[in-house]
C-alpha cells in the first residue's frame, strides 16, 4: 500500500483565488534540493507566504488564521509549468488531501493521483460558489465523497459530481499506486520489450 486510503473527507477549506498558479509558485526551484521526500510543506508557496526576510505576508490565505482545513480551493489552470512532483509533496506535507479547481494542468493532476492527493475538477460556476461560501463563512464545511464522486457545500446542501476513472478511484480508495499494478505485469512488459525493436 502506497498511501492512506481515501473514503469520505469533511473539512473546512483554504481559498486561493488566483488563476494559472504554476508549480514554481507552489514550490520554488531552490527548495528542490532534497534527496528524500520530507519537509516540503514548510516551503509550500514560499515566495507568496513569506517576504524576502522570512516574515509572513499576512494577506496570503495560508497565513490567514481564519482559513484552515484539508481542502485547497484554487483558481483555474492550477499546477501548470514544471513537472516537479515536489509541488504535490509540498501540498500533501502541508496537510491538504484535496485540491479543487475548475481546470488542472495535466502533469500536476497525474502527480496528485500518484501520491494520494485528490484533484477535483468542478465547473467555473460551482468554483465561484465555493469561493463565495468561504468568503461568507470561513468555517464552512465541505464534504468529499469519493465513492459517489461528489463535492458538497454542506451549508447550502449543494453538490457537484466530479469525474475520476474507475481505475484511479480504485487506487485512491484502496491506497494502491501504479507501481503496485505494474509489478504484476512484468512478464507482459518483458515480452513486449523483447519483440519491440524500435
Amino acid at each position, binding site marked *: 500500500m502506497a498511501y492512506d486510503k481515501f473514503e469520505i473527507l469533511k473539512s473546512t477549506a483554504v481559498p486561493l483565488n488566483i488563476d494559472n498558479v504554476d508549480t514554481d509558485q507552489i514550490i*520554488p526551484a531552490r527548495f*528542490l534540493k532534497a*534527496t528524500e521526500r520530507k519537509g516540503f510543506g514548510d516551503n509550500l508557496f514560499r515566495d507568496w507566504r513569506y517576504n524576502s526576510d522570512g516574515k509572513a505576508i499576512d494577506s496570503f490565505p495560508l497565513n490567514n488564521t481564519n482559513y484552515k482545513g484539508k481542502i485547497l480551493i484554487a483558481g483555474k489552470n492550477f499546477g*501548470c509549468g514544471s513537472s516537479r512532483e515536489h509541488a504535490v509533496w509540498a501540498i500533501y506535507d502541508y496537510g491538504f488531501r484535496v485540491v479543487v479547481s475548475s*481546470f488542472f494542468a495535466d*502533469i500536476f493532476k497525474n502527480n496528485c493521483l500518484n501520491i494520494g492527493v485528490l484533484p477535483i475538477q468542478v465547473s467555473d460556476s460551482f468554483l465561484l460558489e465555493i469561493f463565495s461560501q468561504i468568503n461568507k463563512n470561513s468555517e464552512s464545511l465541505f464534504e468529499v465523497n469519493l465513492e459517489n464522486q461528489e463535492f458538497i457545500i454542506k451549508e447550502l446542501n449543494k453538490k457537484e459530481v466530479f469525474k475520476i476513472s474507475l481505475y484511479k478511484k480504485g487506487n485512491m480508495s484502496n491506497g494502491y499506486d501504479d*507501481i503496485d499494478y505494474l509489478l504484476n505485469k512484468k512478464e507482459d512488459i518483458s515480452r513486449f520489450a523483447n519483440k*519491440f525493436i524500435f
Partner: protein
Amino acid sequence: MANTLFDKVWDSHVIEKIEDGPDVLFIDKHFIHEVTSPVAFVGLKNRGLKVMYPKRTFATADHNTPTLDQHLPIKDELSALQVKTLEKNCNEHGIDFWGLGHKKNGIVHVIGPENGITQPGLTIVCGDSHTSTHGAFGAIAFGIGTSEVEMVLACQSIMQQKPKKMRINVDGELNRHVTPKDVALFIISKLSSSGATGYFVEYSGRVFKEMSMEGRMTVCNLSIEMGARGGMIAPDNKTYEYIKGKEYAPKDQEWDKAIKYWSSLKTDEGAVFDKEYNFKGKDIEPMITYGTNPGMAIPISKSIPSSETSDSKTSYKKALDYMEFNEGDLMIGKKIDYVFLGSCTNGRIEDFRVFASLIKGKRKSDSVDAWLVPGSHKVLKSIKDEGILDILTDSGFKLREPGCSACLAMNDDKIPKGKYAVSTTNRNFEGRQGPGARTLLASPLVAAATAITGKITDPREII
C-alpha cells in the same frame, strides 16, 4: 483506417488498455537528472526493486550544477549531495551517468538528440516537463513526475490516459529574422498557457518542414507552455541526416530497417484530430513576453494589451504589478539589466550562431550583464571550433559552462530581485529566474539586440 502520427507511435507502445482507466505504455528511453530522481531511487530501495532495463536509462547532472569552475567540487552542499546521490544510484543500478566534466554532459534535452539517443517512433520520458523537446524527431516525448520515474526504473512502463490530438498548421513563409522561438511564442499567445492542456500536438505545414532540427526542438520544447503534454513533428530527410552517424544511432543494416520504419511515421491523409489550428507564417513577428506566463506574449513592436482582453482581470493585473509594467506600455526601449542565452529551449549551437551573427563587430552594452550558457559540452566545443567564442569575446561577452543555469535558478545563477532579464528560456513565471526576478522571454536574436543596446530592441532595427 487513417491514423495520425501520434496514434501510430502511441498505439504501438500500449501493453494493456485498462477499461475506464489509463493505458499501460512501454517506454523506450528514459532520461534522469539529479533533482527529480533521488526520491524515485529511495522508492525502489524501499520496495526492494532493481532497475528493469538499466541501459534504457541515461543520466546527466544539469539542473543544480554551477556554470563556473566545474572542475572544482560543487560548493553548495545540497546540490553536491544530489549529484553525488545520482552518481551512486547509477553505479548501483548499472545506468550510464554523464556527470560534470564528462564530454557528453549537458542539459538532458540537448544531450539526448546530439548523441543519437532520440529517434523517431520512440516513447521517451524524463522527470522534466521540457521532455517534449524530443518530439522534434517524431517521438512521443513528455515530462513525468517522480512517482512515474520510479515506475519506469522498476517496470520500463507508465500508466497514462491517452491524450486528445491537436494539429497546429503554420503555412507559408516566415518573415526575415523571425525565429522558431517567435513561432512558438506566437502560437502560445494565441492558444494561452492552458489552451492545449489535455492534448498532444502535431506541428505541420511548410514553416516546420523548412525549419532546422534545432528549430523544431525549440518549438516542441515549448509545447508544454500551452499545457500540451508534448508536441511532435513527422520525421523527414532532415531528421535522418541529423541522427545519422551519431553514437547511439542505428548502424548498417539496422539503419536501413530504421529508415524504412521511420518513413511510415506520418499522419495519414484524412486522419482526424480533436482540434486543429491554422496560422500563416507571414503573420508572425519577433515576439516578447510582458507578463508572468508564456501566453502573455506580443509582437515586439506592439504595446501591452489592456486587461479588458483578459478573461481574468485580477490575475492579469497581478502579473503586470509584478513586472511593474502598465497596460499600453511599449515594449521597445524598456531598460534591461540582464540577458540570458541558454537552456533546453535555446541553448543549442544554432542559437549561439544566431546570437553571434547579430553581435559580430558590435559591443555589449556596459549596463547589461550577459550570461551565455551552452546547452552541453558538445555545444561548447562547437562554439569554440566554429570561431564563435572569438566573436563573443571580441564583443565583450563571456561564456559559461553547460547546464540549466538561470533558466530555473537552482544554482548560483540567479537574476537579482526586481531586475529585468531578456531570456531565451521557457518560463517567465514569478521568481523563476531568482526570487523577485522579472523575466521577458524572447528569441536569441532579440536577446542579442538587447544585449548590445541595453534596452528592448527589435533585432530588425540593428542588423
